[in-house]
């Protein structure tokens, strides 16, 4: 399946990450890497620390220990803004759209780092400000077409059904033209058809734009189908890492995770 893509070098490496909230140890000494253009899955039972891991990668949480190396630069703690500026985009487990804005505006927010005009130029809507608005709108319309959101373009997101919201969130992330995309359970709570759509979008994104994808997903069928390599977490510890086949036959993983299902 991944024949067309060429998986490149390691672009993200997390080393010995530990994170706790008060007494709760969310992550303990986690290390793994992500290669360019690959689809990397993170799996594990509820509360294993998967979302926390993504939050560490793009700087929402600050780990107590360990380091993160992104594109050759090692950091103790990622800065959220810097992560975005370096092309890491993200969707959330519990949809984090801007509920008071339309679909179009939500997706436009994804373009914010491309906009250079200042607020004075925007206030008079002249020259660069106007050009940028129109130019970015064009890109956003392409994404809307790509994710088939034309019919809800102007709808306030609060009124959308769950499945569409998830798709809008992906659109917002894609609008940033990210080099790495972190997806937190993009298919959770969807029916089979919606899941298939979402799967296709994820694969197409990876395929067409070469976007590296880190994906959390509970549906094992999906994970085994689309990912190149899988990390398995359990109680904040890493208990497995490898290709889907390797992980599937790893006795510890079977015991801790697959066996439970």
């Amino acid at each position, binding site marked *: 399946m991944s024949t067309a893509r060429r998986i490149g070098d390691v672009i993200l490496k997390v080393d010995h990450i530990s994170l706790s909230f008060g007494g709760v140890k969310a992550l303990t000494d986690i290390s793994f890497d992500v290669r360019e253009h690959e689809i990397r899955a993170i799996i594990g039972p509820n509360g294993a620390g998967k979302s926390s891991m993504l939050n560490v990668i793009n700087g929402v949480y600050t780990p107590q220990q360990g380091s993160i190396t992104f594109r050759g630069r090692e950091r103790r703690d990622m800065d959220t803004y810097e992560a975005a500026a370096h092309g890491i985009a993200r969707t959330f487990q519990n949809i984090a759209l*801007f509920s008071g804005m339309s679909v179009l505006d939500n997706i436009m927010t994804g373009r914010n780092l491309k906009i250079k*005009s200042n607020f004075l130029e925007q206030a008079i809507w002249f020259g660069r400000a106007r050009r940028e608005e129109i130019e970015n*709108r064009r890109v956003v319309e392409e994404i809307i077409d790509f994710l088939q959101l034309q019919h809800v373009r102007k709808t306030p997101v609060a009124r959308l059904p769950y499945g569409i919201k998830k798709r809008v969130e992906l659109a917002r992330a894609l609008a940033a033209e990210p080099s790495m995309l972190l997806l937190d359970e993009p298919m959770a709570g969807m029916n089979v058809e919606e899941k298939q759509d979402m799967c296709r979008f994820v694969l197409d994104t990876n395929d067409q734009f070469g976007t590296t994808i880190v994906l959390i997903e509970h549906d094992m069928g999906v994970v085994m189908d689309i990912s190149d390599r899988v990390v398995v977490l359990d109680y904040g510890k890493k208990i497995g890492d490898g290709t889907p086949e390797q992980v599937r036959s790893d006795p510890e993983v079977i015991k801790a995770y697959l066996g439970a299902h």
Partner: protein
Amino acid sequence: MIYREAGQFKTSYVTDAQIFPIAQDRIGIALMLLVAFVVIPRTATPYFFSAIMTPFLIYALATIGLNILTGYAGQLSLGTAAFMAVGAFASYNFMARIDGMPVLLAFILGGICAALVGIVFGLPSLRIRGFYLAASTLATQFFVVWCLTKVPWFTNNSASGVITAQQIEILGYRFDTPQSKYLLVLVIVTVMALMAKNLVRSTTGRAWMAIRDMDVAAEVIGFRIVHTKLTAFAISSFYCGVAGALYAYCYLGTVEPEAYNLDVSFRILFMVLIGGVGSILGSFLGAGFIVLIPIALSYLVHFTGLSNSVTSNLELMVFGALIIFFLIVEPHGLARLWQIGKEKLRLWPFPH
């Protein structure tokens, strides 16, 4: 069949990116501007200018200011009047202390002073939110008014603490009639309202709404929270500052710091709530509504022969009840009712 979007196909994003993309809206706005700039100046009485139209426009401007901060950026403030006071007293000092200071420049500088104060008092918003922030904006309100009262320098050592706004003169023309002051206010408010409209539909506005709706997500997308919040405070305060200066120069004439008390802050908050949170048009509707209520009540009281002290208390009750009513029945305020009205009109005469 009057109000139709159908048939207006957007041939490009350029047309869709116009400030009023729908032709009927453009016509509506043009009509309103025509009435405001031509019909009213020719027909209205001095009372109508100075008691209704001018305060309405000035309040609308302050309401836009608060709406930027509270409605768009989601930072609740109870200190609006303080920023107006800064604008007024700063403009006054620029006029009084610098010879040949053009009055429009003084208004702008007054607004900039208000913006700077806004940034300082906006700093806590970087760490606190919600009620904590609302309560801390009371600090702005009380501290600023106290400062202006206690430091004689601000009032140019006026013994009574009252300042008298200087004569407004632009390019040799004196603005000294109610009608001319109205026109001056109208021009300023129109320009600033259009600029606000542009701001809220561009990245600046989207950044404000993003931090309002979900600040963590906004940060992950690459909005800088500090920058976004402080620009909201600065621009909002600038609008309030200019409104405050106009309040002194074109409405009251002589003012003391107490004219910008907590009551005014609340009144403007009510205009935001009733007009429509996060709506520029709503700012006008809310301001109009709240300016008209006391006038309507005083007529009512006049005709029913009740005593005058009744009016002010009745006013408090009506304001309070209206706020509760709108929060329960139509939290998006008059702006949403207007929207619904337009949609009805669009479908008319076919109700379905």
